[in-house]
């Protein structure tokens, strides 16, 4: 997986679904509400064919867009 390319792809995907969230924030998790977290889990699991559940929705995994990309990377590595 090309990190920068996938990061762009994820930003594009999430910004379309969550227009009011600043995805570049260093405190992304605190900007999200329940809907934001759920939307991220849903879109990423559909886009990458990975299984994400409640245990993945941690403040650490969703702290920044880079943390999200790393979570996807890890899940793809486990697949």
């Amino acid at each position, binding site marked *: 997986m090309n990190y920068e390319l996938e990061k762009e792809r994820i930003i594009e995907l999430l910004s379309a679904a*969550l*227009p*009011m969230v600043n995805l570049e924030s260093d405190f992304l*998790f605190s900007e999200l509400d*329940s809907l934001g977290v*759920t939307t991220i889990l*849903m879109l990423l699991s559909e886009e990458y064919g990975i299984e994400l559940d409640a245990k993945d929705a941690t403040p650490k995994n969703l702290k920044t867009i880079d943390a999200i990309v790393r979570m996807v990377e890890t899940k793809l590595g486990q697949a």
Partner: protein
Amino acid sequence: MTLEQSIEHYAASVPDKAAVICGGETLSYSCLWKCIQARASQLEAEGLRRGEPYVFVATQDAEFIVTYCAVHLCGAVAVPLEASTPQERKKQIQAEANSQMVNGKWLNGKCSDILYTTGTTGFAKGVIISEKAWTANAENLIDRLGFTSDLLFIVCGPLNHLGSLSKIYPTLMTGGTLCIMEGLKDLNAFFSIFSLPFARFATFLVPSGIRMLLQFASKDLAAVSRKIAFVETGAAPISQHDMERLCQVLPSSRLFNTYASTEAGIVCSYEYSKYGCHPGLLGKPMKHSSLRIDEAGRVVCSGDTLMSGYVNAPELTAQVLREGEVYTSDLGSIDENGMLRLQGRLDDIINVGGRKVNPLEVEEALSTFDLIADCICVPAPHIILGTAPKLFYVPKSGHEVKPKAIADYLKGRLENYKIPLFYEAVDAIKRTYNGKPDRKAY
């Protein structure tokens, strides 16, 4: 007994019992009562007087409960606001509440709270709720749902909203324990609550919250199913599919679908885990409520749970509250068993996961946005929320307007939940023959 009298009572009889749990902190009944008294003294020292409104942001923590009860203890009126209420709107609400105080029509010690809602009228209005209405709401819930002293009730929704605020009352009035969470975004934190040493757990979840749990945490939910005494939902329609799935995941829990509004109070509730999963079926009225359907098919509610009126809006109050009945905007029927069945709404309000959005308010907020020539806000299907606002907009000639720019513009002007989640740039907005936006065409 009022809420505050109940807390005082339990502070004396079971002082060490947990009253409120939030973020790892536990307040016992005696500690809660001391905090409320101290906050009331502080508010009085700051000049809060009997009958005056106290406007404050509804934070999701024990501080909220302390302030809310302290305001009541001062004999003042609690006006809790949505956390994302724009600054200008807060000032407007403060001025509105103050001017109403000067008019003094709702004082007489009867007004307990003012809750701002868009529900029944389609416009953001302050709904005046009396202490009597809160007590009746609490007794309705205790009687129908089964609140008891050994129950830990989890509040995940916004505390300025009737759905969650109303649960403080039956929980603390029966000597139970309240656990406050900041939404459902940290699902692990939600499930960690079930490891606390309580015999029975319960919660209120809007249908989108139930869908989130079923989608991403059904195994975790099943693992704690035997601990869950009941789950109440309401504020938006729940699908038959989600009701059936929840019944499967929580086979021993009582599952309720409740009909309530800020204006009418908590009116009826249907136990679908017992009587079957039927979408739109809301059950029989509770002990302090009754309802009927008028000639137009509208649900009309009566009983002790009703609001006292709207702030500074006598004409609107007269339209909605007539001779002891609240005329809702919901269409429904009453079946052969005396149960309410909802069949839609009379107006254009968009129900966004239980919160009501008037599309006119969104369009009005964008009327000052330089880069948009015209727009219309309509409901669109959303996989989690059920429906969400969608904006069709016409960019001014020569401009490219990205959805993020529109959302950012709206952020300081509207509460977050009112901001559209879907956007589509179009060449023109469809209008009716007399020039009004043609919502049915979308």
